[in-house]
């Protein structure tokens, strides 16, 4: 059963082709990793899926429904959530409020149900002790956790993680990978963009490689990483 279907997706910024005829399918419950050099169009792809950008051509389907023209809040309510590479919490909100606004508006829950759900998510993302802190006062790891927790508060079926491990220390990264693994076990479908490949392959069961807006590899992580095309792009980059 496929949750997300992408066909012939294309997006240009002037002469730069950020997405060039991209097509793939994500099955429900799957964890998919996306890698590629800087400027390969990874974040653009997320923006297209979450609705921050609209494609020049192609279709995006969620659960078989065409959402290509849906606005961002509609996609959120339909079950797509994304996190940003550079965390963008509502700075003047407490950690708890950040989740609450997502759960009430994105998750369409009553205030009371939302509050309970937010508590559970904070606990799962190990942010409970910081629940009443202002989001602006968090450390980087906490901000990354908040980014993920807030996305989860919208009760997504598809979670898009954009370089959530970037900028973390080795041990912080390992901790976060643990949280994402637990998350996966709850049945959320995950698409994860990451430069830190070893963190990625510890979680995902499939890998897509993008380069210059094109999909150049798609499949089993070990096979993808050892393919000649990918090796060529990643020469000098530790895998």
């Amino acid at each position, binding site marked *: 059963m496929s949750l997300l279907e992408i066909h012939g997706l294309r997006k240009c910024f002037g002469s730069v082709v950020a997405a060039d005829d991209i097509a793939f399918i994500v099955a429900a419950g799957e964890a998919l990793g996306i890698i590629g050099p800087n400027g390969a169009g990874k974040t653009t792809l997320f923006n297209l899926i979450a609705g921050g950008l609209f494609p020049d051509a192609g279709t995006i389907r969620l659960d078989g429904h065409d959402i290509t023209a849906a606005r*961002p*809040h509609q996609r959120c309510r339909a079950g797509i959530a994304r996190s940003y590479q550079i965390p*963008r919490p*509502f700075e003047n*909100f407490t950690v708890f409020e950040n989740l609450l606004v997502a759960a009430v508006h*994105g998750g369409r829950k009553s205030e009371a149900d939302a509050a309970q759900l937010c508590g559970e998510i904070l606990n799962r993302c190990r942010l409970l002790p910081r629940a009443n802190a202002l989001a602006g006062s968090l450390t980087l790891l906490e901000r990354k956790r908040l980014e993920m927790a807030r996305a989860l508060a*919208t009760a997504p079926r598809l979670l898009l993680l954009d370089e959530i491990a970037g900028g973390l220390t080795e041990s912080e990264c390992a901790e976060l990978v643990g949280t994402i693994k637990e998350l996966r076990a709850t049945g959320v479908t995950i698409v994860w963009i990451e430069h830190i490949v070893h963190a990625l392959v510890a979680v995902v069961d499939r890998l897509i490689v993008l380069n210059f807006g094109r999909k150049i590899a798609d499949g089993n992580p070990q096979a993808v990483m050892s393919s000649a095309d990918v090796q060529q792009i990643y020469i000098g980059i530790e895998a």
Partner: protein
Amino acid sequence: MNVWADALIQGILLGGLYALFAAGLSLIFGIMRLVNLAHGDLIVLAAFVILTIAAWLGLDPFAAALAALPIMFMAGFALQHLLLNRTLGRDLLPPLLVTFGLSIIIENGLLELFSADSQRLRAGSIETASVSLGGGVAVGVIPLLTLASAIGVVLALNLVFYRTSLGRAFRATADDLEIAQLMGIDFSRIFSVAMGLAFIVVTIAALYLGMRANFDPTIGPERLLYAFEAVIVGGLGSFWGTLCGGIIIGVAQTIGAQLDPEWQILAGHLAFLVVLVLRPRGLFPRATD
């Protein structure tokens, strides 16, 4: 008791009216960074709506204003939904031009419909009723009600902003529009509700504007100026700041008038300039940009 104390008290009460002018402007700017150049004319429009309802149904101004509230809420919602939401974007110019045009349309539309004659909302004996504070100082009941309403409006807006789910959506949209949408907030609906609320505040302001003094279709832009000054003096994003800003402008005007009746308006503007020089971000800024 001396005339200065009297001027100070009258100034504080006048400030209540300016705070009412400013609260709606502050609400809209705080949420959607929309500078509504038609705000003053909308207050005048609301005063004519109250006047018309009062005349048709034979109601006193308070009841007429109450009847106008739902109409004005819907008018604000529709204005934002059908027109202003289309002008919002990265470019700040389109909303300025559209609201400027709206201001001209409203003013001339009112002139066409109601002529340039001065109008007044007649409230009967309450207009001249006053409360003695002792020492020869008396304050009018209407000015007192104006200030009380301003405080009430600020309290209510703060309650909505910081205690409700709607307010959280307002603040989230103001904080980061893109993220707010990703969190499932339908910003166009939120903005339309915000404009509806601003129109409610505008109607309350119009009630006291019309009972305090004469009004005609052309006085809008000057009300806009006072409202702007109150918002800037108070600091963007803080309703209590806006109330203080209104009071500062009001007190400066009455003190100025006490020095020389010709100085009333000038003194208000000078107070605004002084604050702008000393505290460019206003006295109680909350917004970070």
